[in-house]
């Protein structure tokens, strides 16, 4: 089926983005760099994965399955607004609290 190939492509893309985001959370040396990696990659990975699951839900083409797929797309819209706002708020809280950013040559914090 052609819908299986499309859904597998979107799900694998989302899983790769989640993996790189988790690698950035574990490896990078500072709180700000970790938030840079985690915010962007978790947002785009959630968008890809939720779009693939909405396509997989809407493959039956009934009314009930299409309404549930539209609800999954509404979750996608909410995540695409909320996750960058949460990341910006965490960075703003760190700058107001006085955490100095990491420079080249410092030790890993």
């Amino acid at each position, binding site marked *: 089926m052609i819908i299986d190939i499309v859904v597998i492509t979107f799900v694998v893309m989302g899983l790769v983005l989640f993996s790189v985001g988790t690698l950035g959370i574990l490896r990078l040396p500072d709180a700000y760099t970790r938030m840079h990696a985690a915010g962007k990659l978790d947002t785009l990975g959630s968008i890809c994965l939720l779009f693939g699951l909405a396509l997989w839900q809407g493959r039956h083409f009934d009314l009930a399955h299409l309404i549930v797929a539209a609800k999954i797309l509404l979750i996608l819209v*909410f995540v695409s607004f909320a996750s960058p706002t949460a990341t910006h708020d965490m960075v703003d*809280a760190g700058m107001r609290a006085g955490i100095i950013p990491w420079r080249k040559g410092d030790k890993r914090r």
Partner: protein
Amino acid sequence: MERFLFYSSLFVLLLMALSLYRAIAGPTPLDRILGGNAIGTKTTVLIIFIGIIFERVDMFVDIALAYAMLNFIAVIAASRYFHKKGREADFY
């Protein structure tokens, strides 16, 4: 295809267990907030995976939407508390 979705949901669960290290052992409180945010973003996807495995997505999609809203409010409240209470001498 069902087996592929099941194993991909297990992979998301493994990534959540790896993000839990940063939420437990982060040096600053900001790292702990970040780990909680990463785990919550992955849980929103994992609940829909569970609904597809059980073939009851019409029930689980509302739980996923409520969890996404609750995670957003929790992260904003925790970061607001952190920049009210935080000083530089507490971290280093």
